[in-house]
């Protein structure tokens, strides 16, 4: 079982202090607690009693601590009051006497470059059915030109992916070129074409790498990927991590290599890799299978699949869902979209606004228009599909915490906006999903903080 370490935070307040709150605050009763949600700042706290709610309302109405203290009549109320002060301060839900910042949206500007659809593997679930390269793939000079343009647009992050990006002979040089321009570089690879030289070279120029391991051992990985380089790939993960690169292992199981032993065996793999690494390795499990080369799960099958994957997560850490949830919701950071509108460049120069190329429409080609044109188009689409502009999300108190879900799977335009004339609607939200969200907010809060 994974034990978490907690740190103690101490703070001193003056009785003449007042709290200032950034957003409109709404209360939602859920089971035996109150959720106080600051809509515009995507922040929330969990109150244990009606008394705490009443006190918070006094603070919202501008009363200072001294005023509230005089209303307290017994010890129980006093301890609930002190707890409330800690709760407010812990998540910067309210600031002392003045507002520190307003609406805060992540400022990273990213592009993703699919360098080739060529791949040395033929994984059964590959959502791109990667294998052979496309006709007329972009050349080294063209990619360099794209990165130059991205620099002019104040870009910050570049992801190189494929297919398998290492199939391109210019790959290492392109990574260095991106680094020299000052970008944060991330790469996604199957790991099979890496050797010590390439690992050492890349480690100098990349921030992050994600390597796919689709099983818990060589045989189980072979079932999905048809490749026996398991040990080599595991060693590549360890090498990158120990060279200071933030390293992710992405694992997509299929029904063929999921069995009763999977969670125990996968835990062994996680523990083995972590025992060999001085730095952190992050394991990502696919929870929903997209249509792939030979795999196309029905909704019902995907539900079953999801449950099996959750069992693996649960075995390794029963609280992982809640830890992820609160980590993905930084204090006062707004999520108003799933990321739809981000520029994805396919190897032939075609532009998409999400990496699920086969589910989307192409918005043009980088050989015909400047990158600036597509960045602006993407921003326009991102805004158009933002929670602020769609029904029923725009009226929801939780919109910036939820983000609205996937613009392909959860919306009536299914990721295709070009000839879409109707009003954009989120179609999958219901009370069950909202309650799940509330529960995640409460449980993650209660797990993360101790008052």
């Amino acid at each position: 079982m994974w034990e978490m370490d907690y740190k103690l935070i101490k703070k001193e307040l003056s009785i003449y202090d007042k709290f200032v709150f950034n957003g409109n605050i709404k209360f939602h009763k859920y089971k035996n607690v109150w959720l106080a949600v600051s809509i515009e700042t995507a922040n929330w706290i969990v109150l244990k009693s009606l008394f705490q709610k009443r006190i918070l309302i006094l603070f919202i109405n501008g009363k200072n601590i001294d005023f509230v203290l005089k209303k307290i009549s017994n010890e129980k109320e006093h301890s609930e009051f002190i707890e409330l002060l800690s709760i407010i301060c812990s998540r910067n839900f309210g600031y002392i006497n003045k507002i520190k910042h307003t609406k805060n949206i992540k400022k990273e500007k990213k592009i993703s470059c699919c360098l080739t659809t060529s791949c040395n593997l033929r994984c059964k679930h590959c959502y791109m059915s990667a294998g052979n390269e496309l006709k007329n793939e972009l050349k080294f000079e063209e990619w360099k030109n794209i990165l130059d343009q991205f620099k002019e647009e104040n870009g910050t992050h570049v992801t190189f992916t494929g297919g398998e990006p290492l199939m391109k002979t210019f790959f290492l040089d392109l990574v260095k070129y991106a680094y020299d321009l000052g970008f944060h570089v991330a790469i996604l690879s199957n790991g099979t074409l890496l050797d010590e030289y390439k690992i050492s070279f890349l480690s100098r120029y990349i921030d992050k790498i994600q390597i796919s391991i689709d099983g818990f051992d060589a045989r189980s990985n072979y079932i999905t990927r048809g490749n026996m380089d398991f040990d080599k790939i595991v060693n590549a993960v360890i090498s990158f991590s120990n060279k200071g690169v933030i390293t992710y292992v992405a694992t997509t199981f299929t029904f063929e290599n999921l069995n009763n032993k999977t969670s125990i065996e996968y835990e062994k793999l996680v523990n083995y890799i972590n025992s060999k690494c001085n730095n952190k390795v992050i394991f990502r499990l696919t929870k929903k299978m997209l249509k792939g080369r030979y795999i196309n799960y029905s909704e019902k099958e995907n539900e079953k699949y999801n449950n099996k994957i959750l069992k693996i997560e649960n075995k390794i850490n029963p609280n992982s869902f809640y830890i992820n949830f609160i980590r993905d919701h930084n204090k006062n950071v707004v999520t108003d979209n799933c990321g739809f509108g981000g520029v994805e460049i396919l190897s032939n120069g075609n532009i998409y606004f999400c990496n699920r190329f086969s589910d989307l429409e192409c918005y043009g080609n980088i050989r015909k228009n400047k990158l600036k044109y597509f960045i602006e188009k993407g921003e326009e689409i991102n805004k158009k599909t933002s929670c602020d502009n769609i029904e029923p999300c725009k009226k929801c108190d939780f919109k910036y915490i939820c983000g609205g879900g996937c613009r392909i799977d959860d919306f009536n335009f299914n990721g295709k906006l070009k000839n879409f004339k109707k009003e954009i609607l989120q179609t999958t939200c219901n009370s069950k999903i909202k309650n799940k969200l509330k529960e995640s907010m409460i449980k993650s809060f209660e797990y993360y903080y101790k008052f």
Partner: protein
Amino acid sequence: MKTKKLKINWEEIKLDKIDNEIISMYCFGHCHVNNVGNGL
């Protein structure tokens, strides 16, 4: 004038430990709302 002070404290998980966690993936790790939102 001496101001009356109130001392408060709480505990929270050390962030540096969190990254050791296993995390969930949606949309192959590209998705900006990794593991959040609905439908997951």
